[in-house]
């Protein structure tokens, strides 16, 4: 046993200083498609056509560059590959999470919802207990969520904890497109949680439906089942993206500014 103690001590501290300092070790997150300055040809539609999940859109309102909905994006980077003008490039973007103000659930009206959601976020500012539900993810999201507990990311230092019982949970972290077979288990877990409760959608499947979309096996998207407070894009979202999302959920990080 003693040699394990030495081994642990010899390994030293590897934990990232994020969010207090920027993580600059390469490889902590993958590449993301980003819109680079420039004006693209209005007749070219290659990026929209190649996008499998419908994340890239060109609206008539913005004749310049296309718009990327990161919630739906599978980060396959095919849009950047086909863009003849290189308007879509590869970027080191990882703070991608954005708020959806679903909080409260029973409150109606956008202003009321936003107020209620902000109040819940203030409440959990110092510590958040999370119950994770795998609603059909491909395992990559799950591996990244699991990686949050490894010595590199160590989410406990920031006051985040995974709990076993939904009764102890403040937030429900969901990955996967919500399969038909998991619907009931997901709703039961949500109902077992005390209010106020946050619902966090992690990954392209939970956030935007995922590559298979709704079909015979996945009847309803997550936002049709539960009021989603926060969306963490990524396929899968890397540990730093998840950390930023969790910090945003409790009002300790600013919302991503990528638009």
């Amino acid at each position, binding site marked *: *046993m003693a040699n394990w103690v030495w081994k642990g001590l010899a390994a030293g501290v590897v934990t990232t200083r994020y969010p207090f300092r920027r993580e600059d070790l390469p490889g902590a997150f993958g590449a993301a498609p980003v819109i680079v300055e420039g004006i693209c040809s209005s007749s070219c539609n290659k990026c929209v056509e190649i996008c499998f999940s419908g994340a890239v859109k060109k609206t008539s309102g913005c004749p310049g560059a296309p718009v990327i909905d990161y919630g739906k994006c599978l980060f396959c980077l095919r849009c950047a590959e086909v863009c003849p003008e290189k308007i879509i490039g590869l970027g080191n973007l990882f703070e991608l999470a954005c708020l959806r103000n679903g909080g409260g659930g029973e409150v109606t009206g956008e202003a009321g919802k936003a107020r209620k959601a902000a109040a819940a976020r203030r409440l959990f500012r110092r510590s958040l207990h999370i119950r994770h539900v795998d609603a059909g993810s491909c395992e990559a999201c799950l591996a990244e969520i699991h*990686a949050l507990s490894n010595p590199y990311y160590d989410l406990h230092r920031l006051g985040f904890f995974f709990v076993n019982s939904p009764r102890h949970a403040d937030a429900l972290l969901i990955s996967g497109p919500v399969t*038909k077979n*998991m619907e009931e288990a997901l709703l039961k877990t949500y109902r077992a949680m005390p209010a106020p409760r946050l619902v966090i959608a992690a990954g392209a499947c939970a956030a935007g439906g995922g590559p298979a979309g709704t*079909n*015979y096996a996945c009847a309803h998207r997550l936002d049709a*089942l539960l009021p989603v407070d926060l969306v963490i894009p990524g396929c899968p979202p890397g540990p730093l993206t998840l950390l930023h999302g969790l910090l945003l959920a409790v009002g300790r990080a600013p919302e991503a500014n990528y638009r």
Partner: protein
Amino acid sequence: MGLDRFSEILGAKLAGKSAVAPDHRVAEVKASDLADACVWLKDHCAAFLLDAFALEDYSQPGNYRVYYTFDLNAGRGGFITLWARTDAQQPVYPAVSPHIHAADWFEREIFELFGVRPAGHPMLGGFIFREGGEQGLFPLRKNRPNENTSRLPENRSAAKTSAGIVEGEGVFEMPLGPVYSGVAEAVHFTLSSIGEETLWVSPRLFYKHRGFEKAAENLSPEQVVLLAERISGATGVAESLAFCQAVEHLSGLEIPERALYLRTVFAELERIYNHVGSIADLCESTSLAVGTAQGYILKEKLLRLNARLTGHRYLMGVNCPGGVRVDLDREKIGLLRETLKEAGRDFQAWLKMLLATDSFLDRLEGVGVVAPATAGDLSATGPVGRASGVDRDFRRDHPYAAYSRAQFAVPVCTEGDCLARMKVRQAEVEQSLAIIEQLLPELPAGAPANNARPELPAGGSACGYSEGPRGGTLHWVFAGEDGLLWRWRVRPPSLVNWHAYPVGTEGCAFQDFPIILASFGLSPAECDR
């Protein structure tokens, strides 16, 4: 040798031969002869059932076929597939599973997805879909829409999730899942125990069934690659490689030499980080905290290497029909060799300490034993099979990509316990490091991909395979109109290994359950698709 005798005896039943992959023969048999022919293959050619699935006939929609794919004895033959037509009015055929137990779960899938009934199978229904749910939906039939209009579930009172499998005085049945423990995949277990002893663990899968096989219909091969990578996020390279090889074979697409080497390198990188992760999970299940932390530090280093080489931590987006989308330049190759050298050293030091920690080994030795004969009967694959003496590996037996150009050993143990599964993984990591080290200096120059579009001939079919970290995976591609897919069949390794898993838990102590689970390294996502 075996094949010639097969032709002689089953000669009349062989309606035609066609190659759907190199070294893969296909023969039609009458539905009534199917079970006999399968048993004959098993008895006389030591054939090993890999997959069974149904298909709606492309030329006659509304008619169904069933396919049974076998691997002949290692190194002495290729694959052989027997298929049979079922009657259109009443799609029924005699089941193979009463004779070959490995067909059990495949036949249950055939029934629920297509409504083709393997007569004589003792337990049909309630496998993929829940009781009272989508029974009778048969979603993979072509006349069924790919949508679900069912209402939201209401707050029903707790339904009994499983039938009592073990009954008797003092038997306690503990349900576990699908939402359980900290961060875990959705799967349900029924543990039947008397006191400390677990009599039987019955896993209930398909909570994560996402309908990928149906979703791929009428998509182009380039699009289905994205789905193949996401069957299981951790084995995306193996799955997409098997799919791309099927597409390339069917369309006759030439693959540049450089792509073959790069595919091998990426597939081995995937194996290394998966095995490191599996062993770390095993440490976690035995509460060896420092060992777990060291394992995850190593895994994170490898994931970061993946991201620096390919832009994706889980190597998604590497394969495409015709080659690879990511090339390695001189700088990246230097980084790869340097990081792997360091990771190899760390790995050896970590494993040396693990194998010298008695409290850890005590939890693994002689626990969760799957006997070689049982593993063979259940067609166990990958490290699970090889730890139980199933000496099969697609990389060696049916070389693909650049495996024929590397020297490597396939580690096999016969103990079949948790320790054997860990040792097989350890030896495989060492072999994988050696394969990469051998191939990198010989990396041929040229383009990494053939950019021609794959043209799939309507009505054509092909089978691709690869050996992933969890075992062999098989992808069948059937082409429809306009070069789009008519049917995509995936046989992931976890589907067969989950079938073997309860055997390993038989009679185990209650606390050994998570350890046995971790040692199998199973993925519900991969199994459920």
